[in-house]
């Protein structure tokens, strides 16, 4: 029991030390994120075809998440 708690403690500690290096990207640092290639649907026609194909094959639609990337300006 104590050994398990100790392992858990080290895991938490390790995780926190690793995430301490994470930083929020500030509004003025998003030049690379705003590049068109960073958009999840950089090729909208190809994405639409892919979704159509999946919808036809699976008989289902959606489930591809929300937006992301971009300049996130406002």
């Amino acid at each position, binding site marked *: 029991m104590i050994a398990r708690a100790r392992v858990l403690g080290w895991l*938490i500690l390790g995780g*926190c030390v690793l995430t*301490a290096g*994470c930083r*929020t990207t500030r*509004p003025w640092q998003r030049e690379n994120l705003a590049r068109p290639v960073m958009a999840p649907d950089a090729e909208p026609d190809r994405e639409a075809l892919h979704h159509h194909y999946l919808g036809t094959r699976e008989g289902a639609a959606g489930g591809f998440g929300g937006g992301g990337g971009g300049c996130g*300006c406002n």
Partner: protein
Amino acid sequence: MSRPLFALAALAALVSLLAGAPSAHALAAGKPAIDFTLPTLDGKQVHLADLRGKVVLIDFWASWCTPCKQELPLLEKLHAKLARRGLVVLVININKDKADAARFAAAAKLTMTVPLDPKAQVVARYEPPKMPSSYVVDRKGIVRKVNAGFYGASDLARLEADLTALLEQK
């Protein structure tokens, strides 16, 4: 979990939480505008302290920022309207490549002063909350208002009212 290990884990958790928190050093209304000297797109230098005694609008923009590109033509109109009353508009570009700023400025026919901050030395000191953000600076060099983001022409109407009120103060 042993007590020292728990304390260490708690401290690390606190550090990781604080690391992602927004800075408390962002320039806010009521504080003196942070002085800077920057080269401009037309090869001159602009020094904010030299503009003391004038109402100054400082705006941060980039060519990769869509709302910035929507705002700038409206700022240009505002500049054309209020420049003769003494308003100085500095639209600071933060693109890494000067050519990107030059391309947009030429396409939008900007006549406002475009200081260049490619290494983000000035913008990192102002810490604008959004892109674009503008700072209304009064004749004494005090920031009177921070406008975060651009959401439409009504933002510019409010900005014009603020600037006109300041220009009327002597």
